[in-house]
C-alpha cells in the first residue's frame, strides 16, 4: 500500500472514531477530545508559520486570547455562536495583521523576540482592561448560545455532545483548508521562503508580504481555536494569553513533528495524553513541559512524527524515486 493510501485510511479511521465518540464515551473523554481538537487547530496554524515558513512565534497565545475574548464578549450580548466565532476569528486576524506588519520585517531571532513581547502585551491588556476583559477574574457565565446567526433561531447546543460536533466540524474544516493550503503554490512558496529567503526574492516574490500572509493565517487559526473555548468552558481568563499558553502549540508541534502535516494534530493528542498523566502526580506541569521541549530539541527534532515516518516508510512501498514523507 502506498503512503498516500495509508494516510487516507488512517485519516478516515480517525475521523470515524471522532464522529462516533459521543456514542460510546462519557463526558470527560468528550471534553478531552474537544480540548485536543482545539489545540490541534491552534497548532496547525502555528506550524504553517514555523514548520512551513520558518518563523518561530512565541506569541500565538495572544491571538488565541483575542479570539476567545471577542467571542465571549459577543456571546454575552448576542445569542449566536456563529457570530461569536466569526467575530473572534476576524478580530484575531486583524490583530495578527497589525502586529505581523511590525514583526515580519525582521530577521528570525528578532522576529521571535518580538512575538514574545507582543504576546505578553496582549496578556497585559487582558489583565488590566477590567472594564472590557474583566481583568484578573476574566469573563464568566458565558452562555453556550445556539448556533444560528443573530435573529434566526438555530439549533440549541445545550448538551456537550452537540457542542462537540460543532467543534469537530470546525476542526475538520480547518484541517482540510490547511491541507489544501500547504499543497498549493502558496504553500510551496512559503516553504521556499523557509529554506532560502534570498532565492525566493530572486524569483520575483515579495517575501515580506508572504511572511505576513503566513503570520496572519496562523493568527486566524489561533483565533478560531480560541473562539471555540468560551462556549466550552463558560469562562475566559487572562492566562490563556500568557506565554506559557503560547508554549502549548509549540510543544504539540515539536512532539508530533514539525516537518509533517499531521505533526501538530498528532502532537495535540500526545500533549493532552502526557499532560493528563503528569498532572495526576504533580501540580508542577510546566517543568515537565520544559524538560520535554529540551529533550525533543536536543535529540528528536523530528518528533514522534519522524519516528512514525521512518516506521511507515518501512511498511509502505515508495513509488519509484518519489521522495518520502507526508508533505
Amino acid at each position, binding site marked *: 500500500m502506498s503512503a498516500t493510501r495509508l494516510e487516507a485510511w488512517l485519516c478516515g479511521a480517525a475521523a470515524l472514531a471522532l464522529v462516533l465518540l459521543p456514542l460510546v464515551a462519557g463526558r470527560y473523554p468528550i471534553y478531552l477530545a474537544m480540548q485536543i481538537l482545539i489545540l490541534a487547530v491552534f497548532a496547525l496554524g502555528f506550524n504553517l508559520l514555523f514548520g512551513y515558513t520558518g518563523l518561530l512565534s512565541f506569541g500565538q497565545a495572544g491571538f488565541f486570547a483575542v479570539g476567545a475574548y471577542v467571542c465571549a464578549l459577543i456571546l454575552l450580548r448576542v445569542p449566536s455562536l456563529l457570530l461569536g466565532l466569526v467575530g473572534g476569528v476576524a478580530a484575531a486576524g486583524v490583530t495578527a495583521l497589525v502586529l505581523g506588519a*511590525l514583526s515580519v520585517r525582521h530577521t*528570525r*531571532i528578532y522576529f521571535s523576540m518580538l512575538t514574545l513581547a507582543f504576546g505578553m502585551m496582549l496578556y497585559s*491588556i487582558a489583565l488590566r482592561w477590567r472594564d472590557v476583559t474583566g481583568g484578573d477574574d476574566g469573563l464568566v457565565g458565558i452562555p453556550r448560545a445556539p448556533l444560528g446567526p443573530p435573529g434566526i433561531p438555530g439549533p440549541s447546543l445545550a448538551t456537550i455532545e452537540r457542542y462537540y460536533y460543532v467543534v469537530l466540524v470546525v476542526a475538520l474544516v480547518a484541517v482540510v483548508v490547511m491541507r489544501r493550503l500547504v499543497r498549493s503554490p502558496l504553500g510551496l512558496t512559503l516553504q521556499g521562503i523557509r529554506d532560502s529567503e534570498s532565492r525566493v526574492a530572486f524569483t520575483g516574490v515579495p517575501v515580506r508580504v508572504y511572511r505576513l500572509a503566513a503570520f496572519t493565517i496562523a493568527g486566524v487559526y489561533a483565533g478560531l481555536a480560541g473562539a471555540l473555548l468560551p462556549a466550552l468552558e463558560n469562562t475566559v481568563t487572562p492566562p490563556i494569553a500568557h506565554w506559557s499558553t503560547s508554549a502549548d502549540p509549540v510543544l504539540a508541534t515539536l512532539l508530533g513533528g514539525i516537518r509533517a502535516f499531521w505533526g501538530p494534530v498528532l502532537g495535540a493528542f500526545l500533549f493532552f495524553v502526557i499532560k493528563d498523566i503528569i498532572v495526576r502526580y504533580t501540580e508542577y506541569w510546566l517543568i515537565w513541559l*520544559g524538560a520535554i521541549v*529540551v529533550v525533543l530539541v536536543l535529540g528528536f527534532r523530528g518528533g514522534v512524527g519522524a519516528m512514525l515516518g521512518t516506521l511507515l516508510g518501512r511498511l509502505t512501498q515508495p513509488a519509484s524515486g518519489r521522495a518520502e514523507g507526508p508533505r
Partner: protein
Amino acid sequence: MTPDQLAYQGLVGLSLAMYLWLLSAGLTIIFGVLGVLNFAHGSLFMLGGYLAYTAYGLWGWPFWAAVALSLAGVGLVGLVMERGFLKRLYGVEEAYQLLLTFGFILILDDAVKIVWGGVFKIPPIPRFLDGAWPLFGRPFPVYNTFIIAVGVAVAAGLWLLFEKTWWGRMVRATASDREMAGAIGVRVPRVFAGVFVLGSMLAALGGALGTPVRVVAPGIGAAMIIQAFIITVIGGLGNLRGAFVGSLIVGVLSAYGTALFPVFELFLIYVIMAVVLLVRPQGLFGGHA
C-alpha cells in the same frame, strides 16, 4: 508636576534603569558573541534574586556574601546551560536554540516554585544601605543611590574590559569572526563559556541587588525578559551602548509613566517599542535593518 518632583521621579527612573541595564547587558553580550538570544536570561535574573534572598534574608549571611553566592550559583547554572545543552545546537538552525532556551524558562519558572514556593518574598534592605537622604525636596533612598552607582560602575567596568583588556579583545575578535578567531588560536569554546557565564552573572547581580526593593516571585523571569527585549529593540540588538541607553529610556519613562499615567504605564513601553520598530527598526544604535 513641579520641576523638583520631575527630577525626583527621574532619579527613581534612573535607579530602575540600572537594574534593567544589568539585565540587558548580559543578554546583549551573550547575543553579540555567541549569536544566541537567551530567552531564559530573565529567569537567571530571577534565580539570582532568589539565591540572594535566601542567603541574606533567610540564612542571615552578610549582604556581600549573599550577592557573591548569587553570582556563583547563577554563573554555574549558566555554565551548565551553555556547555551542557546549548553547545550541542551550534551547528543547527537558530530556531532550535530559541526553543531550547524557551524550554529553560519553563523549567526554571517551575523549579523556583518547587524550591521556594509560589508566594512572593520581600527581602529586607541591608542596614548600612538603609535610610534616605533628601534630594529635590524628598527623601531619596540610599539603596537606590547605591544601585545607580553599581550600574554606572558596571558600565565603566564593561567598557574597560572590552576595550582595554586582552581577554576583552579576544572576545571581540570571536564576536566579529569566530572562524578567524579560532584559526589564530583563540579557544572559542572557552570564550563562549566565559561570556555566557559573565552574562549570567550580570543578570544575577541585577536580581540579587534588586531584591530589597523589588519583589522576588516566580514569573518575574518572564516579565524581565520582556523588558530586556523592549530595551533591545529600542537600543539595537547586540549593542552594549544601545542596551545602556535603552535601559535609561525604559527605566525613566516607566517611572514617569507610573507617576503620570498609572494604568497605561505598561502599555506606554510597548507603544514606544512599536514606534521604534516602525521608524528605526534596527534600534537607535543598531547596525542593519
